[in-house]
C-alpha cells in the first residue's frame, strides 16, 4: 500500500531541548499506524509537527505533497483531522456547535445536517446531548465528541493523540471499536499515538516504538506484540 503520510528526519526542539531527533515513519493509505512510547518520548510533538503546530526541520509528505512549514489551518484543509491530547473541546459551545466547527474547513458545507446525523450514529450519546453545553459532558463523552468533530471534516487522515487518557476501560474499548469501524467503513487512514501499548497494538496494523525523540523499532503490530523487549517494557507480562 502506498504511504499517505511519509515523514523523514523530523527534528524539533523546545528551547534548548531537542525533543525530536530525526524521526522517520510512514502511514499507509487505509491503514491504522500507531506510535508507542513512554511519556516524554516525543509522540505528541510528532503529531503536532504533522499539523504544523510546532516548528520543525525535516520532510513531511502527505498525499505526495510536501506540507512541512504550512500553517495548521492549511494542513487541515488537505483533509488531516487532529484529535488533540486533552480533547480540545469548545467547552462553552453546544455539542452541535462543536460538530459544526469540525466541518468548517470543508469546501462543501452542504449535507452538514446529514453528516451530524452520521457521526452521531457512531456515538449515539452525542445525539442525545446535541443541545447541551459541551463542557458539561463527561470525559468519555468529550473524547467521543472530539473524534466526532474530527470526522465532520470527512478527513483522509485522522491523527489521534492518547484517546484513552483518563477514561474508564469500558469507554476506551468502545472508542477503539468505533475507530476501527471508521477506518474500515470510511477508508480513513489513522495515526494513533498511545501509551496503552496493548490496546494500540490490538487496533493497529503497523506500529513504531519511539524512545527519547527517535524511532527505535518498527514492524507489523503482530511482530511488535511478539517482541520480548516490548512485551516486558510496554505490555507488562
Amino acid at each position, binding site marked *: 500500500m502506498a504511504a499517505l503520510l511519509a515523514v523523514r528526519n523530523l527534528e524539533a526542539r523546545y528551547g534548548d531541548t531537542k525533543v525530536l531527533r530525526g524521526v522517520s515513519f510512514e502511514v499507509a493509505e487505509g491503514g491504522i499506524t500507531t506510535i508507542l512510547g513512554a511519556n516524554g518520548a516525543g509522540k505528541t510533538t510528532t503529531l503536532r509537527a504533522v499539523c504544523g503546530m510546532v516548528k520543525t526541520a525535516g520532510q513531511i509528505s502527505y498525499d505526495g505533497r510536501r506540507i512541512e512549514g504550512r500553517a495548521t489551518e492549511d494542513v*487541515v484543509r488537505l483533509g488531516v483531522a487532529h484529535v*488533540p491530547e486533552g480533547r480540545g*473541546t469548545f*467547552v462553552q459551545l453546544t455539542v452541535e456547535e462543536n460538530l459544526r*466547527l469540525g466541518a*468548517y*474547513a470543508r469546501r462543501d458545507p452542504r449535507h452538514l445536517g446529514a453528516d451530524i446525523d452520521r457521526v452521531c450514529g457512531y456515538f449515539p450519546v452525542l445525539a442525545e446531548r446535541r443541545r447541551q453545553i459541551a463542557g458539561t459532558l463527561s470525559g468519555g463523552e468529550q473524547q467521543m465528541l472530539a473524534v466526532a468533530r474530527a470526522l465532520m*471534516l470527512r478527513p483522509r487522515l485522522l491523527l489521534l493523540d492518547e484517546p484513552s487518557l483518563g477514561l474508564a476501560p469500558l469507554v476506551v474499548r468502545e472508542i477503539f471499536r468505533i475507530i476501527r469501524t471508521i477506518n474500515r467503513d470510511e477508508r480513513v487512514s489513522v495515526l494513533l499515538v498511545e501509551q496503552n501499548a496493548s490496546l494500540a497494538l490490538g487496533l493497529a496494523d503497523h506500529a513504531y516504538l519511539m524512545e527519547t525523540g527517535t524511532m527505535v523499532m518498527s514492524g507489523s503490530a503482530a511482530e511488535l506484540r511478539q517482541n520480548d523487549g516490548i512485551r516486558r517494557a510496554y505490555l507488562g507480562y
Partner: protein
Amino acid sequence: MSVDTLIQQVVSGLATGGIYGSVALALVMIYQATEVVNYAQGEMAMFSTYLAWTLLNAGLPYWVAFVATLAIAFVGGLLLERILIRPVENAPVLTIVIVCIGLLVILNSVAGWVYSYIQKPFPSPFPAKPIQLGNIYFGAHDLGALGVTLVVLAGLYVFFRFTTLGLAMRAAAQNPVSSRLCGIRVGWMLAVGWGLAALVGAVAGMMVAPIVFLDPNMMSGILIYAFASATLGGFTSPGGAVLGGLIVGVIENLVGTYVSFIGTELKLTVALALILIVLVVRPSGLFGRVAVHRV
C-alpha cells in the same frame, strides 16, 4: 416628583444607556477574544462620527451616510487590527494596552488637527418635535437612538448565534488552538472582531453626537460609562455589557434628577463609584463568569 417625570427620565436613560451598552459591547467583544481592553474604542467611534459628518456635509442623505460610515468603520477596524495589533499579538498584555492608548492619542490628535477642536452640531435623523404618549413627552431622538441601537444589537446577536462565521469567531475567542485544528484562521477572526467592534462604536458615536455635539473629546466620558457598564454586566458577557449599559444609563439619569447635590456635574462620578462598588462586591460583574485557572 411625578410618575411622568420618572418615566421620562427612565426612557431617556435607556436611550443613553443603549449607547453606553454599545460601546461596552465593543469593548467586551475585543476583550473576550484577546483579554485586552481597547482603550481606543471611544476615539475610534469619535473618528467614525467625524467621517459621517464629512459624508453628510458632502450632501449624502442621512441613512446613506450612516451605512457608508458603518462600512468604513468596519474596514478601518479590521485594518487597525491587521496593521497595529497583529505585530504585537503575542506580546505581553501591557504592550497591547500601550498600543491601544497610543492609538487613542493619535486618533484624538488627528481628529483635532483635521476637524479642529471646536464643537460641531451633528444632525439627528429623527424629528426634533417630542413624541407625546398620554401626558408624557419623549424626545424623538431618544426613542430613535434606542431603536437603532437595539436593531444593531439584535443583528449582532443573529450574526454570532446563527451564522457559521459568527460561530467560528466565538470558537476562535474561546479556544484558538482547537479552532486552528478546525481550519479556522484565528488571526482573521480577531480582525473581523475589531471591525465589528468599530462598527458598533460608530453607531454609538452617530447616536450620541446629536446629544453631546461633535468634538474630538466627545467619547471620553462615554468610554468611562462604557467601562462602568461592562464592569457591571461582566467583561465576559456580551449580553451583560448591554444590559449593564442600560442600567448605568437609567441610574445616571435618575441620580442626576433626584439627588440634588449630584445634578449634572457629578454624574460621571456615579459611574466611577459604580465601577468601584462592582469590583469590590462582585468582581466578575452581574453576568460574568468567574475566571477559573487550572494549575
